[in-house]
């Protein structure tokens, strides 16, 4: 209890620092820059923060991290915009947002989808900050429990809760997922330091980045599908309604269960530190199973936007904690911020909370304020962004193509990736038309490498004994949850049967 009171005391001082007018100004600038970075192709949060890092040299560390972390929040908010409007997720954790966000935009509900996405981001982030405020030291201890075996168990759980729920034929779902895994293997094998599946092509050294695949499969594929149905963007009919924010807000409270569940999943995944991407997929998968409207997910359910966005942002925010307390970055952006800390002369780690209390609590206070400032700023842009869909397709299509090409190039500064993007585009069109689900492919590209790495590290540790995945309470309970999640569809079926038979005799 003392600890919590102590934290509140620190936080109060933190607010004093963060609400300095100069820092508030930095927050607003940071959020706006972040949104621009999130919307611009290829400029993900990590890049954006890295590029602006040298500019912060002459600031105090607290002001510098407020600016940079607000760029990060802004980029997180901004990432949802392209996912909803053009089906192009700018960051791995926005992929699940496209599943329902883009169908909503196509049916003229872009404003609603954006409002729901922004609000959920805010709710998720806010929940995570409250958690950090209350139990930061405990959480840091928990994160230390995660070795390779535990991490693999978390990835396994994420896969298990997402698969086994698509309506497409199982063989096609598996093919799609295996293509993703295979593509993810290309390049350098981290564990042995060997090149694999590159067949001597230096262009393949880098492997297939998830972003290239997604820009092609989703972005270009979408344009081709749209063309097939004639030259129009179906969102064109969308009315621009400045009141859309209020109207959407009225509908959101009824998803409080989904929201709370996603917050918990997000925080947990952010700390473990599996990160925001598995959190968003897992949260979407579970919401689909639990929701009354689960069958309609993928056709533009607002709940399908709420679940992944909440979890992704809860995770993204919670991931700041292991970064500060342990010095492990929970995301690429956190890795860059971590570099920033070192450059400003702060060493993240166990002593940071003690030695640099002003900095840490200033940062935490700025998370509260930054997210509030951010939410207000991005909500005012909703009608503006929804209006983009009114631009005629023959203008917007080539611009999207250019954006895709720039985005694909900037991922690795590699022209070859632009060619690959086009190949993925055609593949996306073909697979979509022949009923192969694309989500498992993307999930496999994103999580495959981490899962394989954790699996093999665990086996190196155990000397090849698979029992390492049942060797302690933590890892076995996560694995157990994963198994339950994997066979859940069967359990559900069984329950339905039982209920059916017990109902009949009555």
């Amino acid at each position, binding site marked *: 209890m003392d600890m919590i009171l102590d934290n509140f005391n620190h936080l109060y001082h933190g607010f004093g620092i963060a609400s300095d007018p100069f820092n508030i100004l930095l927050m607003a600038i940071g959020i706006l820059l972040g949104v*621009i970075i999130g919307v611009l192709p*290829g*400029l993900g949060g990590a890049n*954006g923060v890295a*590029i602006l890092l040298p500019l912060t040299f002459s600031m105090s560390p607290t002001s510098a991290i407020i600016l940079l972390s607000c760029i990060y929040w802004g980029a997180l908010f901004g990432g949802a915009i392209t996912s909803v409007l053009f089906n192009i997720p700018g960051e791995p954790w926005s992929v699940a947002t496209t599943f329902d966000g883009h169908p909503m935009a196509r049916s003229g509900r872009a404003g609603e989808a954006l409002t729901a996405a922004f609000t959920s981001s805010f709710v998720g982030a806010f929940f995570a900050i409250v958690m950090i405020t209350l139990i930061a030291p405990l959480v840091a201890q928990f994160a230390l429990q995660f070795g390779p075996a535990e991490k693999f168990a978390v990835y396994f759980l994420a896969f298990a809760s997402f698969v086994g729920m698509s309506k497409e*034929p199982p*063989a*096609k779902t*598996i*093919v799609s997922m*295996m*293509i993703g*895994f*295979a593509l993810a*293997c290309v390049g350098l*094998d981290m*564990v*042995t330091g060997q*090149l*694999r*599946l590159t067949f001597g092509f230096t262009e393949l050294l880098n492997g297939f980045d998830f972003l290239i695949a997604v820009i092609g499969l989703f972005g*270009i594929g979408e*344009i*081709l599908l749209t*063309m*097939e*149905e*004639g*030259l129009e963007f179906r969102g064109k009919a969308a009315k621009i309604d400045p009141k859309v924010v209020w109207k959407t807000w009225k509908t959101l409270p009824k998803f409080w269960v989904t929201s709370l569940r996603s917050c918990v999943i997000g925080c947990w995944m952010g700390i473990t530190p599996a990160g925001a991407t598995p959190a968003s997929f897992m949260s979407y998968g579970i919401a689909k199973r639990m929701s009354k409207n689960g069958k309609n997910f993928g056709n533009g359910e607002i709940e399908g936007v709420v679940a992944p966005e909440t979890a992704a942002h809860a995770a993204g925010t919670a991931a700041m904690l292991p970064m500060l307390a342990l010095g492990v970055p929970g995301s690429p952006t956190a890795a860059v911020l971590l570099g920033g800390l070192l450059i400003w002369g702060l060493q993240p780690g166990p002593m940071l909370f003690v030695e640099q209390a002003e900095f840490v609590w200033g940062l935490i206070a700025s998370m509260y304020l930054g997210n509030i400032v951010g939410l207000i700023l991005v909500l005012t842009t909703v009608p503006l962004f929804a209006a983009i869909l009114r631009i*005629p397709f*023959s*203008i917007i*299509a*080539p*611009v999207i*193509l*250019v954006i895709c*090409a*720039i985005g694909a*190039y*900037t991922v690795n*500064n590699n*022209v070859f990736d*632009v*060619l690959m*993007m*086009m190949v993925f585009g*055609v593949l996306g*069109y*073909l*697979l979509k*038309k*022949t009923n*192969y689900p694309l989500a498992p492919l993307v999930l496999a590209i994103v999580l495959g490498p981490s899962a*394989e790495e954790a*699996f*093999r590290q665990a*086996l190196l540790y155990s*000397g*090849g004994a698979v029992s390492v995945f049942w060797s302690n309470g933590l890892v076995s309970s996560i694995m157990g949850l994963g198994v339950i999640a994997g066979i859940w569809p069967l359990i559900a079926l069984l329950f339905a049967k039982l209920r059916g038979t017990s109902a009949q005799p009555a």
Partner: protein
Amino acid sequence: MEQAHHGAEAGPKQRAVEIGTALLTLGFGLIVLYGSVAVGAGWDGGPQAGFFPFYVALILCGCSLLNLVSGLREAREPVFAEYGQLRQVLKVLIPACIYVALVPSFGIYFPSVLLILVFMIWLGHYKWPLAIAVALGVPAFFYITLERWFLIPLPKGPIEAMLGL
């Protein structure tokens, strides 16, 4: 604007495309299989580099065969897409492919100008002044924001070199 005629127009059959896709994934699986055996797919005190992709490829090949069989069993009538629709798709796909092919040698700016011009004039039937304004404006916007503000160099070709950018 040309509109696809809905109805009984001819087109490639869904069955043929399904079979083709299954063969494609099968072929991909075989390549991966070959590649993973080449780096060692065994268990040497732990999985070797090719262990994981090897089994992924095996499952991929197996499921591709299943899809091939179910593709062969499919009815012969349904159409994948009408030729009219495919023509629409190709109208985007061909310029886009040319665009992408030009990027390695001409950089990203010049082909972007061409792409937007082609789309707006040929597909959108816009007037030249507007088309030129958009075609120059969009790449200029990216040049200023990315290269100048965020210091992210994009690929450039001989034309940019001539202009001294």
